[in-house]
């Protein structure tokens, strides 16, 4: 619908369009030009989305003071004059339709309507309150930057831009959500990221038809390759350095407004197991930590099922003294090993979930209470054996070592599946379960990249940054799985050419 020339008419339509919402403010005023003419004008905006002080200082005052001396003839374009000579804002646009104006108002702009003109001037005055930049909550590091993304998308873009002063760093804005009209930004480095990847990301994002996007989690689940798998195939991070590193590796970052988590695609099992800190500490330390991390993730995955298999099916595989000691500690416990393990693992998950939900100070106590009850009382009451407590404690601690929270979810769910397999078939079942798991992981892809690369398909170059990380001097190329346009990060040494025999 086109704007009409009458201000009151326009105000009426916009109000109707926005259902006369209470936070919609209409400031009507009269412009007197050289004391001869009076033109009625209106500023329309949502309270809270814009800063009221800014409206007064940067819009009302200049207009009221400057336009007074407007000496052009009647039909001259007052709007253009205001836009070009009066207002100092960096972002000003002229809108012709009601819909455009309404959308502008909704994203935090101020619409200026002037009587006699069927265009509106929208002024970017976004000034809502947002959280200050804080340190990351779920991806802490000892060594490395401490800032994290926040809910405001423009700040998030700033955080990335500050790290990559590269003219090729590109941000593309898309609006998704037929009700939310949420901003989504695709970020990539134009001469690094593979075009096909960028196009695929863009295509998938454009196909998302959800009414509102409240967090990047919505987008992640809508555009991933294998949405039925317990494993996530898109990485999420709240660390700007991680996002910047991903961009440099040729991956695409997806920023979603109102979400402090930025998505990185493609993501493989390998990339999800790496922490930003691995690149900041020296390589021997990084390798040491990475090996421990991979071992620990395996421990977190199989320890309970291994315990069930050995205790229920293969006690001859436990060293004699330990077997006796386990048998002694299990004496009088009314449940088979599987039920025992299930009780303990489930209560661990309950304590963990409760700890997250409870407000901070009480969250501490739930840890102590849960630890006391599970660790001590359950044992002395004869519900579980002390060895089971060790097993559970080991899985819990080892599980926390996985740097990506979403991946640890996948492994936690799989753990129960393996426990079930072990309780049916012992070590044979555990092996079967692991094979099924491996098979499943091998079928996963993330934007066409195999989830298990660089191991399957095997790519020797990418192995330099997997379980082991080569020193920076040796990491001269970008990873191969992203198929980047520019493949080198450091100049490669020139190979000595063989002298050609003439």
């Amino acid at each position: 619908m086109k704007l009409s020339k009458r201000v009151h008419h326009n105000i009426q339509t916009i109000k109707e369009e926005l259902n006369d919402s209470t936070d919609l403010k209409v400031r009507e005023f009269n412009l007197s030009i050289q004391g001869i003419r009076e033109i009625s004008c209106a500023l329309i905006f949502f309270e809270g989305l814009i800063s009221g002080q800014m409206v007064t200082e940067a819009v009302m005052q200049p207009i009221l003071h400057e336009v007074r001396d407007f000496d052009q003839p009647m039909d001259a374009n007052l709007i253009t004059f205001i836009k070009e000579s009066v207002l100092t804002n960096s972002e000003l646009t002229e809108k012709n339709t009601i819909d455009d104006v309404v959308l502008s108002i909704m994203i935090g702009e101020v619409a200026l309507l002037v009587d006699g003109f069927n265009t509106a001037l929208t002024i970017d005055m976004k000034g809502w309150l947002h959280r200050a930049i804080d340190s990351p909550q779920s991806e802490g590091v000892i060594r490395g930057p401490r800032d994290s993304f926040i809910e405001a998308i423009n700040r998030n873009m700033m955080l990335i831009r500050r790290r990559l002063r590269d003219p090729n760093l590109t941000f593309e804005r898309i609006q998704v959500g037929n009700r939310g009209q949420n901003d989504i930004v695709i970020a990539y480095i134009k001469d690094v990221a593979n075009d096909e990847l960028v196009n695929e990301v863009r295509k998938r994002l454009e196909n998302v038809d959800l009414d509102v996007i409240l967090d990047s989690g919505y987008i992640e689940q809508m555009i991933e390759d294998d949405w039925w798998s317990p494993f996530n195939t898109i990485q999420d991070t709240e660390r700007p350095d991680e996002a910047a590193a991903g961009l440099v590796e040729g991956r695409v970052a997806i920023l979603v407004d109102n979400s402090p988590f930025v998505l990185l695609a493609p993501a493989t099992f390998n990339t999800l197991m790496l922490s930003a800190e691995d690149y900041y500490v020296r390589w021997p330390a990084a390798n040491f930590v990475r090996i421990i991390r991979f071992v620990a993730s395996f421990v977190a995955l199989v320890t309970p099922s291994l315990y069930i298999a050995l205790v229920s099916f293969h006690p001859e595989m436990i060293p004699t003294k330990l077997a006796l000691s386990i048998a002694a500690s299990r004496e009088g416990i009314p449940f088979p090993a599987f039920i025992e393990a299930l009780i303990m693992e489930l209560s661990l998950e309950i304590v963990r979930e409760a700890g997250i939900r409870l407000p901070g100070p009480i969250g501490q106590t739930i840890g102590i209470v849960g630890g006391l009850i599970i660790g001590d009382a359950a044992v002395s009451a004869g519900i579980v054996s002390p060895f089971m407590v060790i097993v559970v404690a080991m899985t819990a601690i080892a599980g926390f070592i996985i740097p990506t929270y979403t991946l640890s979810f996948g492994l936690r769910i799989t753990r129960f599946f393996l426990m079930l397999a072990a309780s049916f078939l012992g070590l044979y079942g555990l092996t079967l379960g692991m094979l099924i798991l491996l098979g499943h992981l091998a079928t996963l892809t993330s934007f066409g990249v195999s989830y298990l690369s660089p191991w399957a398909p095997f790519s020797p170059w990418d192995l330099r940054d997997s379980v082991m990380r080569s020193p920076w001097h040796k990491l001269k190329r970008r990873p191969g799985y992203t198929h980047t346009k520019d493949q080198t990060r450091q100049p490669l040494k020139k190979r000595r050419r063989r002298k050609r025999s003439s």
Partner: protein
Amino acid sequence: MIHKRFRLVILTLTLALLMTGCWDAKDVDQRSFVMGIAFDLAETEDRYVMTIELPVLSGFASQSSGEGPKSVMFSTVGTSVAQMATHFESRTWRELFFGHTQAIIISGDAARKSIRPFLDFFDRNPRIDRRLTLFISQGEAQEIFKTKDPREDLVSVYLNQMLNTLTNTARVVKMNFQDSLRNLESNGDTILPRVRSSGTEAVIAGGALIKDYKLIAWLGENETRAAAFLYNNVSGGLIVVNVDDNLYAYAMRSASSETKAKLKDNQLIFEIEVKSEGDIIEVYYEEAQGPSAFDIAKIEDKLNQLIANEILHLVTKLQDLKTDPIGFDRLVFRSYPKFWKEHAKDWKDKIFPQAKFEIKTTFRVRRTGIVEKEVVYERQR
């Protein structure tokens, strides 16, 4: 059609899961760990007494008071091992579990009749830990379980660990169940470690010579040492030699032996080569003034003679008894398959007793300790 086939696949997979799984699931605390088994002759003929040593589980819990017995013995009489094992199961609600059995002891008297009836049950059982040890006891076998060593709660565990330690002293042959069975199944002969009860202690020393599954003779400690050299399972041990009226204690740090079979003019010759390196760890002087210098070459010669004689003594004894527990027959089979084919039947009775042995021993003294002494080393060529 595809749908039907798919259903069939699912059904087969489910069956495969249910048929293979679960049937042997039994938690550790539902099993009776049979730590040791002893076999004796019963008073009535053709019957045996089987005694098992079971741990008292509460004694192994972490919060245990440390008081009370840590193990119990059960005995029963029967004709076959399986039958006697079933007797036990009717007396305890737990299933007997042989996966952690450490020792099987057969009394000398029973072994003189034959050890064969005791072995088949264990040979067939896939869950037996084949690293357990088969002992022959001098005296009643179940008496061994009545000995109590304060350092170890279970006699069977004690026996098995003791045997491993004793390997370093070359006083026993280290034979686990698997080795013993292999020897026995190839020609019915073997040497098993001997154990006896001194009332309060179980003593492992010497060996029991088995011929055709029957105990025919005991071997003394020196004979056992020679046998250990032939089996090539000596890893240490002390040899004391007398040189010029001084006693030298030689501790082996490594030892190995190799046996080769040679056939010359239808005469079998076994070339046995023993090599060892070690240290002099003590010198005992009769007189106030000891020797001013070590004559290492002399010590080495004496060691070579001593061990060569011991080995020769043992093989002569084996030849006299017409038994081949070391497995020279396998060596002949490998080296001269044709000859073996012709003479396999009368190997123990004719061929082996007439074989010749050439024994070469090379003992080397590497260190003499940190006491400063002049070391003389002249090897006469």
